[in-house]
């Protein structure tokens, strides 16, 4: 591949207690592209995604072996700064999760915790992030209202803006549209299209068309294994594995 790799895993295994949820996953995420992860429910997509920013650390009794690198650095190496990793690898969750604060405070939260205190600078970041997430026009007159008063689609774009505000390199998205209607979904898909110029996006989705529309690369997972990974056009048009073909064509349980 010609693109440079930003995240890669080598022989990654993960257990929740006894459950072997990820089995020898080795994959490479190219920089400034959109990579989609697809696969049936429970196959480990979210688990894999949460490995990339070490959010699985929060769960008790998780065991991980193998290697994950970000910018060629092992993220499990002793002395790794998890906080820095999470700043660089942002995440958008399946269910929009704005904080119970005002819209402005939601966006300003990230820069603040990373030490920005200048009011003008914060204002600039807030506006820029909201514009970037294509929600500025809808909220610019109500920045001091509670974020919980926004619609689901607006909340999700707010969460994307919140992630952008800390200037990550990678954005992880776990089924970001599953709680949204088609119009809101279309907005988010357009947004992803724009984002890939500056960011690397990894998106989990259950929607084949969505994966085909927005992604450059696609990985197909099944029962904790990465079955196949490659250019989206290849995966969808000439899958190498029968499992993949069955899943994509819907001939699947």
């Amino acid at each position, binding site marked *: 591949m010609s693109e440079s790799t930003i995240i890669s895993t080598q022989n990654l295994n993960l257990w929740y207690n006894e459950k072997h949820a990820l089995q020898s996953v080795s994959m490479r995420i190219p920089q400034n592209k959109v990579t989609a992860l697809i696969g049936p429910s429970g196959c480990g997509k979210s688990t894999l995604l949460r490995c990339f920013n070490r*959010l699985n650390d929060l769960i008790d009794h998780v065991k991980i072996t193998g290697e994950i690198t970000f910018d060629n650095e092992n993220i499990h190496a002793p002395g790794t700064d998890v906080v820095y990793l999470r700043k660089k690898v*942002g995440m958008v969750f399946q269910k929009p*999760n704005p904080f119970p604060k005002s819209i402005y405070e939601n966006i300003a*939260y990230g820069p603040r*915790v990373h030490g920005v205190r200048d009011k003008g600078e914060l204002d600039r970041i807030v506006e820029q992030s909201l514009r970037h997430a294509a929600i500025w026009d809808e909220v610019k007159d109500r920045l*001091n209202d*509670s974020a919980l*008063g926004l619609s689901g689609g607006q909340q999700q774009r707010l969460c994307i803006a*919140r992630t952008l505000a800390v200037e990550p390199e990678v954005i992880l998205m776990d089924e970001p549209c599953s709680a949204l209607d088609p119009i809101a979904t279309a907005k988010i898909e357009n947004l992803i299209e724009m984002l890939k110029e500056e960011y690397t996006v990894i998106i989990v989705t259950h929607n084949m068309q969505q994966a085909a529309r927005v992604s450059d690369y696609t990985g197909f997972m099944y029962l904790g294994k990465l079955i196949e990974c490659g250019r989206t056009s290849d995966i969808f048009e000439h899958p190498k594995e029968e499992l993949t073909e069955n899943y994509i064509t819907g001939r699947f349980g």
Partner: protein
Amino acid sequence: MESSKNAESGSCASPRTARISVIKEQAIKTVFFCTAFLAVIVVTFILLFLLRDGYPIFQQVGIIPFLLGSSWAPTAVEPLFGIFPLIVGTLLVTFGAMVFAVPLSIGCAIYISELASPRIKSILKPAIELLAGIPSVVYGFFGLIVLTNFIRVTFDLPTGETWLAASVLLGIMALPTIISVSEDAISAVPREYKEGSLAIGATRWQTISRVIVPAALSGIAAAIILGIGRAVGETMAVMMVAGNSAIIPDPIWNILSPLRTLTGTLGIEMGEVAVGSEHYSALFGVAVVLLVITLIINLSAVAILRYLHEGRTSRPGRKPVIPSYLRESFIRFLEIGILALFIVFLLAATPWYLAALILLTFGAWYFGRHHLSQHQIEIIASGFIITATVIVLAILVIILQDIVINGLPALSWEFLTEPPKDLGRSGGIYPAIIGTLTLVAGAIALALPLGVGAAIYLVEYTREGRVTRIIRTGVDLLNGTPSIVFGLFGFAFIVLFLNTGVSMLAGQITLALMVLPTVIRTTEESLKSISPSLREGSLALGATKWQTISRVVLPPAVPGIVTGAILSIGRAAGETAPIMFTAVVFSSRFLPDSVFDPVMALPYHLFILATNVPGSSANKYGTALVLLLMVVGFYSIAIYVRSHFQNKARG
């Protein structure tokens, strides 16, 4: 339609039997309604009787002079009935208790919900509940013997019975309330907020301080208000360590001055007053004021918690009540206010070098924090949180070990099975043990059916509406009523009005009324935790409402109900104030013959030994230990039952 099927017999019932079953269902519902409404009636009665007996003093002295009069001298030749010093005393003691308890509790609550590993959590939570289970007279006893002595020596005073002692002791007693309610609030913050914040690259401490605690703020506020309510209504412990002079400290922040609270006044003087005299009426006036204060405090806490609960269940479109800029300036104002009070308190309460040290630390922290790295801040913050938790645990250990070590030598077979001799200096405490057990048994026998009935009505028979709101408010009010007020009510209503005399029965009824809210609440919780689909499943088979409740809903709720009952038993066994004027005598050779005889009781026995009988050290500690073991025993059983069945339910 309804009458066509009868699941019980499995055959078609005739219209006649169907009508009977409708009547039966209606009757059952009515009975439950009555039990539920009892709480409202009791609250009304309490208020009426206190007002009835307090009215003459308001009439004679006038409300304003009564409230604002600066001198309380009820037994002087020219008696004066001004309760202002008592109100100030109550406020000061409560304030001091909160200064002590709030930082410790919140630190400890954060530690338990955010930092502790599951194993440490499983040790800490029961420890906190244990702290809640220690009877107030045992706290008072500990305060009188250990704490006041410590204060006397440290500050070189003639006596250690001071505002400081009362505040520290009340602070300790408020710890478990504040900790457990704040911990619930913090744990209830949705996990997504935490993940959202961490995923942005916030540190753990930033996440706690900027997202989790703010999101839990109203719950924490309610916890503090409940703690205040507990402190305002506490009688025995305060009375034993506050010194009880009805003066306003001079200067006002002199925490080494003795003072007297509203509750203390009632506890001290009620026993010696002539029924129907001016003084008697003045005491009921004091009780009215006390009741009003605590009711306001508790209702506001309940309102906050309920608002939170509803807010959580009906989420969409909720706007912040207060615009954020207003809120921020309000919080800033509050912070500055609290800080100022804290500094004054610090300067007054501690030697100057200690105050200077603490202030310097705070100042350095405040101005230096922007120069610290996030990592250093995280370490400092965890340090504070862990220190708070360790202090809370240390308090528990100190109290327990003092009582256990000094009490064990007194324990013997004779001590447990013989009546007291020589005013309790020697001999045993057998009649007191039996007295407490019978009081408690009678109380729970009354409260359990009433409380369970009320809960069944509230959960199963009504939709939320005006009636349930009224009943719930009644229960909340009853729950917030100070135990000494129950004592006064029991005296005025049961002992005098119903003319039972000072008797076991009067004590049992008073205690039953006091624990009623606990039984109602725990039963309600356990009924609510049973899935509606079970009920629907049973009703869909054609079972009647009562059949559904008694065969499907109640059986799985039994462990919860039992837990509530045992907690109530523990609480009733440790209470002194409600039985002090209604049921107990200090010393008696014989066991009571009937429920119309007065009895001995452990908490009261300990109280009298500790305050009125010098030189009975071994027996004091022995009594305290037995009482502690009894109450803690009940609490442990309750905790065990609960966790046992919780684990079982989880599978």
